């Protein structure tokens, strides 16, 4: 009996070791790498980003990266979170610029005033040399940098956290560093969409666990340097995350002929321009046959070879999909399947491979002042 128990214990340990070795999608919203699949900073709509350190005794250093929709050109900033601390910032459009504002004490002291007055992500990116950037829509990544076990719930002075990050940049080891990396149970985040200072809906970030097991030191984590999954998480973890996000199909329901309804497809980790993906669409109508067990498939349409998505963030209009069917009037409410989304350039897990993506169902509306607002935003469950 003892032998069986030993074998079982061994197997259990091996399983947990294997689990610890792999990145997994979090079910509790807590993780060590987080992605907000979409933000809007366009016309009347702003997005507030909030990052929580839910660990009551550990400090966490992290980077928040805003990536624009065309080719994921980024602007990032460091954040310094005490135990139980929160950081937030808001992106809004201001003329031709998208501006990030934050009055949070978790910002680096040297850029606190700049962020208080608003930092143009657009201008920052243009100054760096990028062209054709469009930050009005994009996505956000939260990268872990380091964790410190304070063994106390007391707030840690931000200057101490800044010094620790500086020490890491110099290739040295600050005190209280958790050398096994940032754990998967301490960070969570969300984005909240607002119009006229009224929050209309909130979207939790997609969280991953087991992505950070090596704390980096040196230039790779310097404030001014780009963020990148290969660098901050490692090639293996990047690959595992892409595998977790690789899917054959997305299904969602539509109503009101798909009016004001959109699916946002976010394809992380490509970071190059001219990305194209092809896909197939099947539109099903359920309104006239809802009592029947079978679903009548009126199409596939448009023709598979005619359907392409460009960029790292692609917004697909549900109304447009229905308009392209042979008889759009027939489709009032029902289900749409988008299948075989395939890379046709050598990005993510390769050319001709299924794309890795996060899909978000977004509904827009007009408020009483006739201003745009995000009525609903939901991450579509992975199949």
């Amino acid at each position: 009996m003892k032998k069986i128990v030993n074998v079982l214990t061994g197997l259990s340990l091996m399983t947990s070791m294997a689990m610890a070795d792999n990145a997994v999608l979090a079910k509790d919203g807590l993780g060590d790498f987080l992605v907000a699949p979409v933000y809007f900073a366009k016309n009347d709509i702003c997005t507030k980003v909030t990052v929580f350190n839910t660990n009551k005794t550990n400090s966490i250093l992290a980077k928040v990266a805003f990536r624009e929709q065309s080719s994921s050109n980024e602007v990032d900033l460091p954040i310094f979170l005490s135990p139980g601390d929160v950081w937030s910032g808001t992106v809004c459009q201001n003329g031709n610029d998208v501006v990030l504002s934050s009055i949070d004490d978790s910002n680096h002291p040297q850029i606190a005033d700049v962020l208080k007055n608003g930092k143009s992500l657009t201008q920052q990116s243009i100054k760096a040399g990028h062209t054709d950037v469009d930050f009005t829509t994009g996505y956000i990544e939260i990268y872990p940098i380091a964790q410190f076990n304070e063994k106390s719930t007391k707030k840690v002075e931000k200057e101490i956290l800044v010094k620790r990050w500086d020490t890491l940049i110099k290739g040295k080891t600050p005190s209280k560093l958790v050398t096994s990396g940032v754990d998967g149970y301490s960070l969570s985040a969300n984005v909240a969409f607002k119009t006229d200072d009224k929050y209309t809906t909130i979207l939790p970030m997609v969280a991953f666990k087991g992505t950070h097991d090596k704390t980096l030191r040196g230039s790779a984590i310097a404030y001014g340097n780009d963020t990148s999954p290969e660098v901050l998480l490692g090639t293996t973890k990047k690959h595992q995350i892409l595998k977790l996000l690789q899917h054959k199909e997305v299904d969602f329901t539509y109503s009101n002929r798909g009016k004001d309804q959109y699916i946002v497809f976010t394809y992380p980790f490509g970071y190059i321009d001219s990305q194209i993906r092809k896909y197939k669409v099947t539109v099903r109508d359920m309104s006239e046959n809802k009592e029947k067990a079978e679903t009548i498939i009126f199409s596939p349409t448009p023709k598979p070879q005619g359907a392409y998505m460009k960029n790292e963030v692609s917004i697909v209009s549900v109304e447009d999909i229905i308009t392209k069917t042979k008889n759009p009037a027939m489709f009032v409410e029902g289900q749409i399947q988008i299948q075989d989304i395939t890379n046709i350039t050598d990005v993510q897990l390769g050319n001709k491979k299924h794309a890795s993506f996060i899909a978000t169902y977004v509904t827009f509306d007009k408020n009483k002042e006739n201003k745009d607002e995000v009525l609903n935003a939901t991450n579509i469950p992975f199949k």
Partner: protein
Amino acid sequence: MRQISLLNKLYLLFFPFFLLAFDKLYDLSGDEFEIVTTKDSYKLILNKQKFTEYSFSDDGFKFFLPYFTKEFNLKILRYNSIGYINGFLSMDKNFNHKLNVSASNLKYYLTDYKKNNQKELEYLLKNFSIPYKKLTSLSIEMYNIPFKVSKNFNKYLYFKIKKLPKNKLEYISYSVYIVLDKKLVDKYTKYYFPKSKNLIKTFLKNINKVKPYYKEKK
């Protein structure tokens, strides 16, 4: 007597002009590394912020892989410039055998001797050149390297930057850490430098001077 072809004569005449210039990313024999000692390992962490400037006259960079490396981790990022990192990684300075592989194939882009599909180092040791295309960052990682492999190290790896006219890459910055097998380093250093008081420092200071470990074994 063997005849030398006209092409070879021209090559010999202009030989100095064919030499490629590779920036050295770090110097293990200096004091650029913080050394963290554990029971089984020496972890060397580059303790300076390092930047390298590139122009179209530069060819690339090189970095040294010492004996007894168990783990190697080099992270390279664009710094203060845009454009893509394109090029070839090889132990062969002439980059003769270029592979054509998909960027997502871990067999060519990661080394972990505990995993069958991650053997980039095997290709490098056979002098193949591995292409890297359109990257905003470069990560060269090697894990669980056994002694039978690391005894063949003490070699440079070269990254030749492919120059594309429209690319605006001007600077890179990088971080490095190297984990050495403590037992093997200590044994080796004691053999060659019996009077050494600080084995790891002696090992690093003499890294380019000593004979291969495996020849020492009788």
